[in-house]
């Protein structure tokens, strides 16, 4: 038996992260200092600008910067800059609310609003007012993404008229979390869409019903069947709902669940995106396996 260099083998202790340098930049005239590698969005938020709209950004996902609603002006840049993905540089001069920025946001919201159904997308109504959105000016002949709701399983529905093609579900189902790759963007341009292979129905796809796509969808295009049906019946009422954090009753991984309860029944299950066990993700049992407490007579 030969020996190996013991020094190489001994590595006790938690590694120390290299110290982060601070970078100074200006946001709307105000000096801000943040750690190197921070995104412009985070820097703006840390400076109190929490009004920058975002749609395709997700705190557990690598920014895809596809929706372009979070654009800001950066001095020296020919175009506007997606704040969700651009990292700060020293001396950067950022403006978050210029006429140019407002114009861009208005147009993006008009483009989305004139082609998709944003009625249940969080915050969009407020932004529409803020930026003076007018979808009527695109005329009545305009192309839209109107299409029937897909109900091919009992757990969740897909209403792609609401889909803004933010790629979040694809990234969550794919390499960033679930690694199941049941869905992808298919087609190109305005015809691009979220689909399983050959537009197969979910039961014929690789879908494992973890619902991690639902968790990241910003527009309600993907929705628990319970929520969808309650909304359709006019019964969905968030003001009557409670949210309780607890732990999944199934396996020993111990995922934290947030139970959304309305009228003494669980209507939806999520998990906090900042939890180190789940990062907002669950499996089919944690996400949908709650019926057994509601079927007890």
């Amino acid at each position, binding site marked *: 038996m030969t020996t190996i260099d013991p020094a190489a083998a*001994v590595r006790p202790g*938690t590694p120390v992260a290299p110290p982060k340098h601070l970078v100074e930049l200006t946001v709307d005239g105000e000096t801000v200092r943040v750690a190197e590698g921070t995104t412009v969005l985070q820097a703006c938020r840390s400076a109190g600008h929490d009004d920058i709209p975002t749609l395709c950004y997700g705190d557990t996902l690598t920014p895809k910067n596809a929706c372009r609603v979070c654009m800001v002006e950066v001095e020296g840049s020919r175009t506007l800059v997606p704040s969700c993905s651009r990292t700060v540089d020293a001396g950067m001069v950022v403006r978050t609310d210029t006429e140019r920025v407002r114009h861009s946001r208005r147009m993006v919201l008009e483009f989305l609003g004139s082609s998709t159904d944003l009625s249940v997308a969080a915050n969009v109504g407020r932004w529409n007012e803020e930026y003076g959105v007018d979808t009527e000016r695109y005329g009545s002949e305009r192309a839209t993404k109107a299409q029937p709701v897909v109900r091919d399983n009992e757990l969740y529905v897909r209403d792609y008229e609401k889909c803004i093609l933010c790629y979040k579900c694809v990234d969550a189902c794919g390499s960033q979390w679930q690694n199941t790759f049941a869905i992808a963007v298919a087609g190109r341009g305005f015809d691009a869409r979220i689909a399983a292979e050959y537009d197969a129905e979910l039961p014929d796809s690789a879908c494992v019903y973890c619902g991690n796509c639902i968790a990241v969808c910003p527009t309600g295009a993907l929705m628990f069947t319970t929520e969808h049906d309650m909304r359709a019946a006019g019964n969905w009422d968030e003001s009557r709902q409670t949210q309780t954090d607890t732990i999944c009753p*199934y396996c020993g*991984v111990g995922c934290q669940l947030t139970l959304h309860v309305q009228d003494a029944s669980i209507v939806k299950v999520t998990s906090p995106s900042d939890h180190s*066990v789940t990062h907002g993700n669950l499996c089919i049992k944690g996400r949908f396996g709650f019926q057994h407490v509601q079927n007890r007579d």
Partner: protein
Amino acid sequence: MVGLATVFGAGGGTSSYAEIEEADVVVLWGSNARNAHPIFFQHVLKAVRRGARLYVVDPRRSETAQWADLWLGNHVGTDIALSHTIAREIIHAGLANTDFIGRATTGFDEYLATVEEWTLERGEAVTGVPADAIRELAHAYATADRAQLCWTLGITEHHNGVDNVLALINLALLCGHVGRHGAGLNPLRGQNNVQGGGDMGAIPNRLAGFQDILDPDVRERFGSAWGVTIQDRYGWHLTQMFEAMERGDLRAVYVIGENPAQSEADKEHTVELLRGLDHLVVQDIFLTRTAELADVVLPGSASWCESEGTVTNSERRVQRTRKALDPPDGARDDIQIILDVCRRLGHDWQYGDTPRDVAEAVWDEVRSLSPMHAGMSYARLEELNGIQWPCPHDDRLEPSYLHGRLWADDPAERGRLAPFSPVVDDPPVEGLSEAFPLRLTTGRRLDSYNTGVQSGGFSNPLRHGESIDVSPEDAARLGVVDDEWVRVTSPRGALTAPVRIDPVLRPGLVFMTFHFPEQVDTNVLTIDATDPKSGTAEFKAAAVRIEKLDV
């Protein structure tokens, strides 16, 4: 749990999930984590996406194995043989961490002698895994900067399950892959609070916090807190209880949240024993098969959403469960039921008024008695999204990995050294024969859970019911097709089940789950050989034959 507790003194996985993301090599042994522990597997996949190499040891090329850089499909029940072969290769290649062995372990020489006969050739002959694949795993594991070794029921559900675990722990000791950030040993718990149950003393030999019942100081502390005298001997684990029932020594049983009438191997015999008791009390949220046999049924509440408390997960994280719903009429909070039982037995313990107050008061009592939980107030658990044990202090957190002490220079700080375990290879109790030529192994599917009482409740697009999964080759040989019902016979019994042809199986290996006992009662087939050390049954290896039904 028993294996880790034996070697390290604490029965818990040594790393956190987040550390697994930082490993360079991950070995999943007898674990179909992709299906059985999906969110844990997401952490493994983070590591894989970062470039970590994944090795999977499993007789089936399971969904987990399909992610592996290298899958080693050993014969069922040859895990010790494989582990020893790996160990010998590591030692002979000069890759053992002699520094760590010298500083932190005992019993190396005896271990060395045990594994010496396990040459690659012998390992290949016994396990079926080609020598070069074994060598590759050995070298990858030994040379990794940070390696993780994780296992599940594929390792423990054998008649020698504890020895299997000890054999894996040996590998970590051999390479120093324990007690460091990112390197560790991690058993994945099948059920949501197996870890917590053990931590709280719901095992025959320990009180809360893994404190030995035989230690008089421990007994004294607990006894004075509860106003009782605690017996100075170990209790029985499940198998011993059934043995005691058999002998007639155990006459009354109080079952909480378990369903042995359905989940035990050789279930017909189990039912007989339960029927023969003088008194059986069952406390559960369902009227289970076991409850149907009971003299008294106490309807409990669903602990995860109808009552308050804590559970502990596989990374030793203690987390709060909270009440979101009222239990149905007649059902009550489990703590209240137990307190009422205690009161009738003469102990009028008062913990508070609301369910939350009661749960917190009970927890504070745990904290006062179990040092490793002392720093975990409800407030802190809530603020930090749970805390991993040990947490003795309420103003700081310990490292997320266990046993860092083993690396200490100061022998006093190092404490009790970790012993190698010279366990011996011991093939499955039931060998294959002409009459029973197929190896039946069992496991879980993604969408279902144990005996299916919980997971059966929701409309589930993945569920296709119980089946006997066979390889395409065996199906062809038997002349059976998908969904065809066949008779499956073991030396203990027979059942009928529909066939599912599954290409992840090699010829000779067949697979079933326990999820659908109403439909197909798999336990009729499995054997009740159990591990004397842990009481776990050999669910993973029975011999069966399959026959076409006459039409």
